[in-house]
């Protein structure tokens, strides 16, 4: 019968590592903080490998951890939003203004002659 799967001693400190990375700490600084604050002795490379492994890990059904409040988020690129005229509260000052909708081009701005 197989024994209990190996579990990294850094498992309990995943959120701590994420938090420090978000605070722009280097891997070496995080390693030092783990030793200083949590008495966990490890190497910079171990911390990095653990973090990378953890983010890619797939869990058996029913064994997934609760969603971490600081789990990494990747933003999709978004086109600049098209402006819309839907103010939350409408007052007479919010009357649509020509300059919000139209470019008004007068002869002074016009291009040079053909």
């Amino acid at each position, binding site marked *: 019968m197989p024994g209990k799967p190996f579990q990294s001693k850094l498992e309990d400190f995943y959120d701590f590592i994420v938090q420090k990375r978000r605070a722009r700490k280097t891997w070496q600084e995080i390693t030092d903080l783990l030793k200083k604050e949590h008495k966990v002795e490890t190497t910079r490379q171990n911390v990095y490998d653990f973090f990378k492994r953890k983010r890619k890990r797939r869990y058996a059904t029913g064994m997934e951890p609760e969603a971490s409040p600081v789990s990494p988020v990747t933003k999709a690129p978004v086109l600049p939003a*098209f*402006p*819309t*005229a*839907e103010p939350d509260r409408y007052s007479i000052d919010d*009357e*649509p*203004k*020509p300059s*919000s*909708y*139209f*470019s*008004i*081009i*007068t*002869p002074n*701005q*016009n*291009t*040079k*002659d*053909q």
Partner: protein
Amino acid sequence: MSKSDHKAEKPQTLRRFISPIQSQGELGKSTLVEAILSALKFWKVPFAALDADAQHRTLSMRNKDVIARAAATNKNEFHSMIQALPDVPVTLVDFPSGRTDELLQWFQEFHVIDGFEREGIRPTFLFFLSDKAKAKESASKATQIFDARADYILVENPAKFESDDFKSKPLYRLLLDMGSPTISMPALTPTALNSWDALERSTKQRYSLDNVCDPSFGGLHWTTQGTLQHFRNVILSQLEDIAVPRIVPDAGLIQNRVTRLKPFKTVATAESGLHDALL
């Protein structure tokens, strides 16, 4: 609708509202709108422009002085846009294709044509004479709704579409009866279009028709710039011929006239060569 209906007396036109309204894409719509914009600038006519094509934004990306807003995407935006119409002689709006039904509904719901007539604004719609079903159907719907309360400019673009079937329809004869003029867009070679496109990609900038036709613009081969200048001149000349009253309400507003190019030289040929002075 009878002929007498659309010969009813027209209210005095002080301002023009110009836009395409058909549902078919890939007709050369934004190119023509840009050419009209170029013409208005060249004539030194004060005007307002809006790029309402939220998907492509061709007009506003190529012309940095044009605002883009999704005025054809929802009813409130359309309402606000009509309410914000500026007091200038010409307003040019590039509506997207595929929104004809909504636009026709909103024009009616907000009583736009009634309001336009009270304000002295007359619409001019650009109709591309494409044989494609959507182009014909949407032109027909718009004509039945606006009838003689709008003017129409008919557009041939042989490089993009055929027009034989459109011209065989009663709709075409009706539009001609209403005095609608026709302009024909000259064809640009794929080489010219590709060069323009490649330049925009390589510099990560968009260039307007006016930009690329400017003699001081150095990004294109002289043959490409030459053919683009020819294209612009041919369209501007045609637009100038029909400008009053369908584009500009008053001839006095046009301060600058297009210099007409001389037609290309041709030599009459005969099988025997007897009519050629050099033979």
